[in-house]
């Protein structure tokens, strides 16, 4: 396949970026999108051009590092996949592909297509954990009976890889799907109930402080989430937050 790529280039955080156009020839449809980017970088280096910086790590849809906004959609046109799982067979010969970083005030661009998603880490640090007494008499988690339905829902929420596609996709750059997944995975389990009130209040407070937008229930986050995290989690977080606010 021959492709025209329009890629966001930005030298550093404070530099003014712009879209640059590159031509690629004989791209294999069996390549993953990141492999195609690797080939493009080799091509650019051969031409003496600075290679394009982009995030990647596991390249098997687990780590949540790859974060490209491809042809107007987070992780590209395919569903339930990350950018590393997107294959070039999803495009046609002669296509023009636009590649941009995930854009949100809370995700500032570091360079080219890499963005700083440490806002998610700070939200997680604000309450996305269970405090465990490690004095030696901690109960084995597997010894606590948990309803299968709740365990499944908690697991579904826990599959969130924190890639930020929900924020990138949302027209308001809202982080509600990510935060609600992290709140839900604990809210559904007995181990998480002890700190449930503080957790939801602190995580939502941190989310608001990071500058994410307000959720308007468009549902775009659920559609673009590579792990299929459901909007049900947002409703659960809203309930948890209302109840925690009134309980204090």
């Amino acid at each position, binding site marked *: 396949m021959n492709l025209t790529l329009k890629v966001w280039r930005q030298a550093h955080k404070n530099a003014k970026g712009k879209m640059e156009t590159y031509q690629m020839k004989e791209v294999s449809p069996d390549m993953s999108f990141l492999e195609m980017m690797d080939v493009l970088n080799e091509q650019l280096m051969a031409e003496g051009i600075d290679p394009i910086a982009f995030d990647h790590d596991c390249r098997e849809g687990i780590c949540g590092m790859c974060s490209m906004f491809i042809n107007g*959609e987070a992780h590209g046109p395919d569903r339930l996949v990350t950018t590393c799982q997107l294959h070039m067979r999803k495009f046609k010969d002669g296509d023009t592909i636009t590649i941009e970083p995930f854009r949100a005030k809370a995700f500032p661009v570091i360079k080219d297509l890499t963005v700083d998603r440490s806002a998610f880490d700070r939200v997680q640090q604000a309450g996305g954990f269970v405090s465990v007494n490690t004095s030696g008499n901690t109960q084995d988690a597997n010894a606590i009976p948990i309803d299968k339905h709740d365990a499944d829902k908690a697991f579904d929420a826990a599959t969130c890889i924190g890639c930020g596609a929900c924020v990138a996709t949302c027209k308001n750059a809202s982080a509600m799907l990510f935060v609600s997944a992290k709140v839900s995975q604990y809210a559904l389990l007995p181990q998480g109930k002890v700190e449930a009130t503080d957790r939801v209040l602190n995580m939502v407070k941190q989310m608001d402080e990071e500058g994410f937008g307000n959720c308007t229930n*468009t549902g775009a986050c659920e559609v673009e989430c590579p792990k299929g995290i459901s909007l049900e989690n947002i409703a659960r977080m809203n309930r948890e937050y209302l109840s925690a606010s009134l309980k204090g």
Partner: protein
Amino acid sequence: MLGLYTVILNHKLKLMTLTASSIGRKVAMALSGIFLVLFLTQHFSINLLSVFSESLFNEVSHFMGNNPLVQFVLQPVLIFGVLFHFIMGFILEFQNAKSRTVKYSNYKGSANASWMSRNMIYSGIVILSFLGLHFYDFWVPEMKYKYVEVLPLNPDRYFEELVHKFESPVRVGLYVLSFVFLSLHLLHGFSSSFQSVGVNNKYSKSIKTFTKAFSIIVPLGFVFIALFHHLNAF
């Protein structure tokens, strides 16, 4: 006494924290929306009476226009609800615009969300413009009639006034256009308000079906009433 004061202060602080948060604002938006939907249903029911019975419409309108509870309690609550919903809508829109300072050069919003959900502010602005016209057209003359000029009560004037309002084809045209946008606004807003207050369960599918039916039937009904009186005037 000090204990009671502490309890009240504590609750006040909790409410302030709640309303200052993004979820609190979202819930407030949803609750005011549900309240306005209830008002819309009541308004539609009364307007519909005008198609079937002139006397019944006059009777109910006279009651609504002169009952102290409706006039001095429900009416101010309604005005507050309308203003709150719109002001909060603009605040949320302003905050959301600030959350992405650099826009995408290619953003395919239609790939993952409905037009209605992405353009609530625009459908809302059209509805707000209509409400401005409606206040100027109905509420201001009504207030003038009752409280400024203090004209004698006339229980039979309402139907005639309503028919007179729908004589102008321009006004009917604006009315129809506004209700098209109201329908679009409700198609997302109604079921969305349930999600905002935390309802996402086995009833959600039924809520979405009811939302679709309500959002089409009620605005269409308002349009029917307007056209009915407009065409009957000739």
